[in-house]
């Protein structure tokens, strides 16, 4: 079972906090891999919030192909973080040529694009790069999105962090999600590493989703270009989140109703029961079968955590105004935010969705039995 932590903070903090918290929770992961998502960036990226940032791992040849490709479509490098790594990686970490975090300037002809067009094109470029990389095995692309950095690597989270020297100001961020991996395959595909990301939505999960296969087929058949991959059964959580918001125009409260709908008995008494019954039926193929704890973040930089119906995965939320964290274990939360009112820690149960908005004022708790916010 993997370990997860998400931190949201008014002041940018170092990703090392999250990685060290993972280390505290290391009983639950075997140090076989780490995934990191940074958003609402501080440091130099603060000044270029709108510029799309490409994150990935490249071989020298892959980098050349990338440059050629980006120049061809009119993207100019605006800023980059160079992760210079020592010659020999720690044991278990593969030797790579280049970890890339690079912000680009949009081509001029994109100026007239609507936000939807822009988002669609960014997604398309990421998918194309991923395909190119898979063909020649020379690039792995995690994200290409404004104000977003993703780093993933095989190995022990702390060792990887030290190796990549992640303790640098340029990587400070206000929203950090990190996962320490419990490996289930010897051949680890980095595309199977959490967190997953699509158009500003990201999630990471522990547990196994046994309904993965039909769900992934359903998503694939939505004909949305980004719904591909599925090297991991957890990637569907991200895509369902995206589908719930983008295709259905619903919100976080309803996401929980999509993945783990209420029983019919409870729907009868629910103020939004009629709507939820229809949602349950038409989204039947998106019902998950956990146990899973899903932690994620939304385009507006809210973070959230939901449990599945069976509630067999640990998860706790806590913090203080301006600084909150969701972690798999209390010890992880203690490490990340030692000074907080612990009596207000909250462990969401099978009906709950907890979230912290971009204003970082409080942990909002929403139960599935609550009325839904009015829809327009």
């Amino acid at each position, binding site marked *: 079972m993997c370990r997860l932590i998400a931190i949201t903070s008014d002041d940018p903090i170092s990703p090392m906090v999250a990685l060290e918290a993972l280390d505290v929770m290391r009983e639950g992961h075997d140090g076989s891999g780490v995934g990191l998502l940074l958003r609402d960036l501080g440091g130099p990226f603060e000044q270029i919030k709108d510029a799309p940032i490409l994150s990935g791992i490249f071989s020298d040849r892959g980098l050349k192909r990338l440059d050629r490709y980006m120049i061809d479509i009119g993207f100019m490098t605006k800023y980059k973080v160079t992760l210079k790594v020592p010659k020999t990686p720690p044991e278990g970490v593969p030797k790579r040529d280049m970890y890339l975090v690079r912000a680009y300037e949009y081509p001029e002809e994109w100026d007239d694009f609507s936000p939807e067009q822009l988002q669609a094109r960014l997604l398309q470029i990421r998918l194309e790069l991923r395909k190119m990389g898979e063909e020649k095995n020379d690039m792995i692309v995690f994200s290409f999105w404004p104000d977003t950095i993703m780093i993933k690597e095989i190995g022990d989270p702390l060792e990887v962090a030290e190796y990549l020297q992640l303790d640098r100001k340029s990587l400070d961020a206000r929203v950090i999600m990190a996962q320490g991996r419990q490996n289930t395959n010897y051949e680890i595909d980095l595309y199977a590493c959490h967190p997953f990301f699509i158009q500003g939505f990201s999630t990471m999960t522990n547990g196994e989703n046994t309904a993965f*296969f039909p769900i992934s087929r*359903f998503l694939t058949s939505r004909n949305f270009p980004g719904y591909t991959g599925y090297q991991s059964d957890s990637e569907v959580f991200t895509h369902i989140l995206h589908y719930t918001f983008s295709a259905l125009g619903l919100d976080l409260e309803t996401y929980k109703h999509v993945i783990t709908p209420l029983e019919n008995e409870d729907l009868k008494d629910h103020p939004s029961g009629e709507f939820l019954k229809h949602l349950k039926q038409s989204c039947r193929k998106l019902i998950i079968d956990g146990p899973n704890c899903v932690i994620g973040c939304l385009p507006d930089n809210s973070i959230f955590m939901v449990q599945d119906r069976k509630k067999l995965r640990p998860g706790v939320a806590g913090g203080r105004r301006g600084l909150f964290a969701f972690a798999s274990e209390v010890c992880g939360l203690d490490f990340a935010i030692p000074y907080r009112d612990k009596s207000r820690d909250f462990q969401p149960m099978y009906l709950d969705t907890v979230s912290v908005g971009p204003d970082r004022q409080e942990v909002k708790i929403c139960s599935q039995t609550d009325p839904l916010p009015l829809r327009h």
Partner: protein
Amino acid sequence: MFSNRPITPSSLSIKDLPWQILWDKDKCTLCGQCTAVCPVNTIELGVFRQREPQVSLEPGEITSNQHTFYYGIRQKTDPAYRCVGCAMCTMVCPNDAIIPAKSDEVDKLKFHLDRGGQPWRRGGRRNVAGGVLDQIKFIRISMLTDPALDAGRHEFAITSLLGRILPPEENIRFVSENGWIPPVREIYPLIIGGMSFGALSPTMWEGLQLGVAYLNEELAMPVRICTGEGGCPPRLLRSRFLKYVILQIASGYFGWDEIIHAIPEMKTDPCAIEIKYGQGAKPGDGGLLMWYKVNKLIAAIRGVPSGVSLPSPPTHQTQYSIEESVAKMIQSMYMAWGFRVPVYPKISGTSTALAVLNNLTRNPYAASLAIDGEDGGTGAAYNVSMNHMGHPIATNIRDCYLNLVTVGKQNEIPLFAGGGVGKSGNMAANAAALIMLGASGVQVGKYIMQAAAGCLGSESDRCNICNIGLCPKGITSQDPRLYRRLDVDQVAQRIVDVFLGFDTELRKIFAPLGRSTSLPIGMSDALGISDYNAAERLNIKYVV
């Protein structure tokens, strides 16, 4: 027969018959119960003469003969009176003195069952045991990240949807705009398939309905039962139990006069309307209820005179083409109940099922598609239809489901599978396999008759005389002397047993796969089979 008699082409010996009666003179008390119970009068009291030579070893004494005789059982060899192996004689014998034995070779009788140019007709199923469903294994056991679930203690959502489900985007829009959303029923995924009042005896029918009502009202299992093409008794039509019933309309429209007239008086809507275009046992052929089963009650419910044969036409005669017929019938049925009742067609398994499905996907009213595979049972059909016509259900369902996945409508038109589910007694395993291949539920008939009423029929052609109204168990007979053998309450109780047992077995399959929050429709990653070609064809894992 004497050895010097001319023999006819159809002269058969007992050895030529499929079933041979073994009778034990020492045990028999000559009570006569077997001859009385035999549904086809195969056995009769026989007087057997025996010669006992009186031989003396004394020289000069003459050798003589003494003749004795004994009473016993004689088995007729005339094809019209052939033993059907039902073993009712065994059941009633107080001393276990009599039993039918299956011939050790292929019988010669089958070549003579067409007397008067009438080919062999019978009830039952295709006379081939087993099938691909029995070979499918469930291989994806949760052993790693997550432990398997507890089949006894976890909550399981074992229900399915019957009805046209809109795509999520449209559904949400229609809810807010108050648009028409097709009716959808949440039902138990095991449906009692269409067996008509007429094909079944009144006691059997009532027992089924009673069992279904109990499952719904006392055990909260939303089990549904289809009427078959024979109408529905007026009292049921006007009762609150109608909501557990799927009314079937087929090419003979039997009983629909009564149904239509009852609409204004209905307390509740029926669960759904099934338009039967075909069935697995006799694909492309209509119902075959013969005059001797059409008594007054059946005639009244069906709206026909009694004592006449009721062969339904093979297909609906009022329209030019199946496509048009499906579209029009679906629409008029929706209209009849004010668009509150799901209407769906049932077809026999066929290589053209995909074309039918494609038509349905374009028809916004089509509530689902039921496909009945070649192993489906029936009360009456030509043997040739049963044994040789039709398409196996596994590939039919699979192809249709994968086609829906390709067009992204796998949640919109539920598929229901029938035909041989539980043929070898493995109903839960067969049903789960079909669900994971893509079915939203399964329809069963024959298994229910066997399990809930003790039907003796089998795929080695045992009994299977449902068509002639002489069912020795009273399941498919309209003769009160026979059907009173069946106790309504006991049938109902068995129905409840069957469903509860099935439910537990289903959990025992789903729990180790880690599935409990929704029916694992299309979860084919859990399926494996040791037949390479079958694995390729069904798009599941090949395992040895």
